[in-house]
């Protein structure tokens, strides 16, 4: 089975990359300012040398570097990311607690940006030399150049402060006690602003990409054939050009996953969305390095999983590509 071997190869590569990130993380923790034992002792309210030494022994901080590295790596293999210095809770639990909100936000934004981007891009491609086509591209460029966190703030200002249409903060209305369908509706309302904000930037990328890709596809021989056959332009546009133009967009979507993480950090920060991006911001403010690096590792893992997924979709969509990676 070509696919099985392919998936296996990709997984092996992913494991190597993740292992490298873990090692990288370990050295970053070593570089982080402040002695973790002293910080823990400080949190416990005692700072005498005796106690610090005890802690150091307990957490293995007195061991040689390679022993510590080994412990750190094998810990992460067992999903033990250590403790958050500030909260005293396992990092893994904190991340798992916040992950669903992030997946909901990025998933919605991803689908939204892809659909809107492809629609806008094909409209622009069909109107290459018309003002309406140029307008779409100009808008895409503006969205591309706008800082995400600023769009987020401005949309709070307009849609929640002035117009009062949508809630600006959080995942659901705290204290309203909604259940069932009412809760779903409430969360959906809270999702609109963050998801749209996050989607705008990616929509701009997909719009530009779809247009370029469609203009390229329109030059191909099979399009000339279709035109010579007398097919309607709208049919050619949809069934011949768009379908072939979609392939590079799938690849690009995979590459954008890393960017999506960055966007989620900013969007979640502004909208107080309780996901791992917001958690990263909180870790940053409290200088909670262990938590920060745990989230960093986790976000890289998410991106890799998503990359493998898009790679498979790409291969399913284009049967011409077999095996060769």
């Amino acid at each position, binding site marked *: 089975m070509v696919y099985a071997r392919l998936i296996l190869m990709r997984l092996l590569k992913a494991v190597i*990359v993740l292992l*490298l*990130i873990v090692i990288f993380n370990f050295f*970053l923790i070593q*570089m*982080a*300012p402040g002695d973790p034992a002293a910080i823990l002792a400080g949190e416990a309210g005692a700072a005498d040398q005796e106690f610090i030494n005890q802690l150091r022994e307990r957490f293995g901080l007195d061991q040689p570097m390679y022993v510590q590295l080994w412990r750190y790596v094998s810990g992460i293999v067992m999903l033990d990311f250590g403790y958050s210095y500030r909260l005293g809770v396992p990092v893994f639990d904190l991340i798992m607690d916040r992950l669903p909100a992030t997946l909901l936000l990025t998933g919605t934004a991803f689908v939204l940006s892809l659909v809107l981007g492809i629609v806008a891009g094909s409209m622009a491609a069909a109107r*290459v*030399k018309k003002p309406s086509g*140029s307008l779409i591209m*100009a808008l895409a*460029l*503006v969205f*591309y*150049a*706008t*800082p*995400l*966190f*600023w769009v987020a*703030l*401005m949309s*709070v*200002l307009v849609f929640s*402060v002035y117009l009062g249409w949508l809630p600006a903060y959080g995942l659901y209305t705290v204290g309203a006690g909604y259940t069932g369908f009412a809760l779903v509706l409430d969360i959906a309302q809270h999702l609109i602003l963050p998801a749209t904000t996050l989607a705008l930037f990616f929509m701009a990328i997909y719009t530009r990409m779809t247009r370029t890709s469609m*203009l390229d596809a329109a030059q191909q021989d099979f399009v000339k054939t279709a035109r010579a056959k007398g097919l309607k332009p709208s049919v050619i546009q949809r069934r011949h050009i768009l379908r072939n133009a979609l392939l590079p967009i799938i690849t690009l979507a995979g*590459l954008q*996953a*890393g*960017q999506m*993480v*960055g*966007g989620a*950090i*900013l969007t979640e*920060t*502004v909208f107080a969305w309780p996901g791992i991006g917001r958690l*990263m*911001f909180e870790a*940053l*403010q409290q*200088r909670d*390095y262990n938590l*920060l*690096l745990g*989230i*960093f590792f986790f*976000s*890289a893992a998410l*991106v*890799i999983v998503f*990359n493998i997924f898009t790679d498979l979709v790409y291969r399913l969509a284009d049967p011409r590509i077999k095996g060769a990676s």
Partner: protein
Amino acid sequence: MSFFARFAQNRGALIGLIILLLIIVMAILAPLLFPESPWRMVQRPFLPPLSQEGFLLGTDTMGRNVAAGLMHGAWVSLLIGLVSTSVALLIGVPLGAIAGYYGGLVDDFLMRFTEFFQTIPNFALAIVLVAIMQPSITSIVLAIALVSWPPVARLVRAEFMSLRHREYVEAARLVGQTNSTIILRQILPNTLSPIIVLASLMVATAILLESALSFLGLGDPNVMSWGYMIGAARTVIRQAWWLSFFPGVAILLTVLALNLVGEGLDDALNPKLSRER
């Protein structure tokens, strides 16, 4: 047609260039128009725009002049954008050149290395790097450079691969030029135009990255930057919209201008490749 005439044919690029020049002028005039530190409290806080003479854009939560911050911030944004892009080029160009010129195992190794950096979510990596190294202009520049060199390496590698078997390169080899001479004197000059176009777009991305970092509180605590201004005004958005509005417009215009200039450079430097618009 001259270089500038080709550039100016793209109307968007011309507009971009004008905006960019205005921002550069802003940065240069900042210390002349506002010789005082932009951190100094000069009036009562929360002064709305146009409400008091001399405070065109109002004051912030601490009574600092927003217009002064905006002009001093221009300098920081441009500086960080340019320097971090240069550092990224210093990493990416040699790696790409070596990988593309030598090929084989060297290429394999360098490309795996590049892929590794491309897989890591780049904004998250930048955050971690700045947080660990402590926020300063140097750490911000380094972090931005470290996350933005891979596209340079890939571009330069592709160019070198397509040029390394050209006749003039073979000729240079035949007359006994060393590999380093061929790389630096024969091939590299021919790859400059795509590098310049990419670099102009990278400056724009670097400015966005810097503003996002300082928005999250990872800016250099000693310099006033646009991202910091927005970040500091985030919690008072209901009371004082102007504090986050104006710096955001400044970032948007700068990044937009650089993108437009990049497109214009692409048209001017690669006249054959540029598409009909």
